[in-house]
């Protein structure tokens, strides 16, 4: 608790410190590559025959995903706190890579925990982290994926709390993480709102994003929450089936519970044991969901749907061939939803999709699963 209180105090101070904001913005611009483009996907729009599809290109950020927004913010906090060691959990490896990146940038020791199953399916990212100077520790317990990596990161933090900052990668965990991580990501939505107004002179009818922990989605949604006519659609991992253990659709099969310091919707069995989950995409393969999403769902402000492994894999190919963009498998879930939804919308309407990351890391999985002529 003391570490969480300390973090919250430093974060509150930093929020009000103009120099902190200035430095963060400077790094986001000159180092990470912000602002990211909002691209009108003309061919995809034509093929779907419905609403105009715009793509928010978070995949063009340095390290290849939105994760760096949060990593830069937290890294600057680590500096303020005078700590020198940073630990992180990672599912697909994008957050691990972004953490290793900012640690190299600012000179911190970096240890990333990753489930051994995830290490196998996202090998490229494991190598990148090591090349960047981070130590990657494989976690062999439990399901050997993201939630197990978080357990191990938490054990490390509790043990080394005096010297170490836990750079959590999503809008999960105990307070202040869900709020703080959302704040570091809301730049996506802020940019997108200004960009769409410039491009179309009006707000989108719908915004679609994939939801694992929920950071990229809350990042694009947040600025639009007040725009009541804009539909916010989160896409969860439908995996390979409906049974508990075959997917990671928390809102479909989960119920309120506590996991890793957060109270939210959790996939669990009748005895309150946390369920195993499945998704072809490591970054969505998590049994709980950011509490702010639970609130958006419960208040009816956002709608949550799912896409299956198969639909996501197909969507990858569609986007690659219609717009020349290979999305991460996580982001492909959002693309799968726009493929279903855009045709049902009017041609005068706009639908925005957050492309949260690029798909280089998924080449191995894509190769296993797709038969390319």
């Amino acid at each position, binding site marked *: *608790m*003391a*570490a969480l*209180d300390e973090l919250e105090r430093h974060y509150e101070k930093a929020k009000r410190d103009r120099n902190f904001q200035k430095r963060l913005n400077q790094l986001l611009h000159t180092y990470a590559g912000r602002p990211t483009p909002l691209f009108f996907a003309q061919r995809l729009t034509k093929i779907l025959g419905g609403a105009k599809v715009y793509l928010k290109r978070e995949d063009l950020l340095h390290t290849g995903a939105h994760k760096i927004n949060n990593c830069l913010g937290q890294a600057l906090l680590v500096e303020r706190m005078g700590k020198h060691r940073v630990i992180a959990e990672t599912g697909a490896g994008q957050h691990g890579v972004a953490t290793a990146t900012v640690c190299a940038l600012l000179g911190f020791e970096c240890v990333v925990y990753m489930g051994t199953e995830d290490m196998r399916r996202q090998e490229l990212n494991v190598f990148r982290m090591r090349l960047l100077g981070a130590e990657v520790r494989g976690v062999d*317990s*439990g399901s050997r994926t993201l*939630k*197990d990596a978080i*357990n191990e990161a*938490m*054990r490390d933090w*509790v*043990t*080394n*709390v*005096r010297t170490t900052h836990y750079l959590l990668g999503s809008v999960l965990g105990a307070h202040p993480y869900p709020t703080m991580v959302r704040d570091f990501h809301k730049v996506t939505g802020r940019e997108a709102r200004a960009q769409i107004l410039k491009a179309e002179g009006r707000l989108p009818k719908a915004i679609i994003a994939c939801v694992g922990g929920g950071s990229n989605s809350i990042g694009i949604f947040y600025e639009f929450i007040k725009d009541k006519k804009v539909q916010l659609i989160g896409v969860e991992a439908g995996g390979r089936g409906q049974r508990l253990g075959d997917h990671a659709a928390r809102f479909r099969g989960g119920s*309120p*519970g*506590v*996991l*890793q*310091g957060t109270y939210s919707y*959790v996939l*669990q069995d*009748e*005895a*309150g*044991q*946390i369920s195993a989950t499945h998704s072809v995409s490591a970054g969505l393969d998590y049994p709980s969901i950011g509490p702010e999403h639970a609130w958006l769902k419960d208040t009816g402000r956002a709608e949550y749907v799912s896409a299956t492994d198969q639909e996501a894999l197909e969507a990858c190919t569609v986007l690659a061939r219609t717009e020349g963009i290979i999305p991460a498998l996580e982001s492909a879930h959002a693309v799968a939803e726009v493929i279903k939804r855009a045709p049902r919308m009017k041609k005068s309407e706009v639908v925005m999709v957050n492309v949260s990351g690029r798909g280089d890391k998924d080449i191995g999985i894509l190769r296993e699963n797709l038969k390319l002529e």
Partner: protein
Amino acid sequence: MPLRFQNSPALVAYLTCGDPDLAITLDIALATIDAGADVIELGVPFSDPVADGPVIQRASERALRHGTSLLQVLELARKIRKKSQAGLIIFTYLNPVLRMGMERFSAAAQDACVDGALITDLPVEESRDYLVEMQKRGLATVFLAAPTSTDARLQQIARASSGFVYAVSRTGVTGARQQMPEDAPKLVGRLRRYTDLPVAVGFGISTSAQFEAVGKFADAAVVGSAIVEIIERNPGKEAESVAQFVRQLLVSGRQSSALSR
């Protein structure tokens, strides 16, 4: 039934219930009490034991493999209570309790005649409903105090606690260690400013030297991973191995305390 720390220091023994199975856990519990333990913490295995090191993690995985549940642990407690008046504390993570329902859990705990509970990841700040249900049934609410807890928080913890206060000896997770860290006596000293309840020190205690050292400044020592590891290493003779370990721990551990009084 009020918790009594008869001995000085008292021994609080933690067991992961269901490892290797509930019937053997019953035997181990009774043998441990017979060997001199004052309180048994009945650990409910959880899928994500974030505060536990590898020994208890492995025990939890084994216990979960044959479906050990909170309900079954409460049933086990009832069986122990039929044969012993030793202190019994349900030791669990929050989610299984939430799933059962705070009221249902407290009622079941009362019905099984346990003395109280310790919910590892329930901070005092979130404990209002739990305290209401447990206090109205006269059940003890044990909380964890850490070396990194501020004085303000220790005061909050002390206020919410009954039965005893569990002082975690170091920053870290469960698991036996060679030495006792310097953190422990200081933490206990700070806690005593806010409470008259007995203070138990836990995490990392496995030898009689450590047990004796803890006895000099705390009212009880909690031994967990050391016992769980003995169970892991002695299949077929778990109860006798634990009993032997406990007897040895207490004989040398208490002798010197008694002499120095």
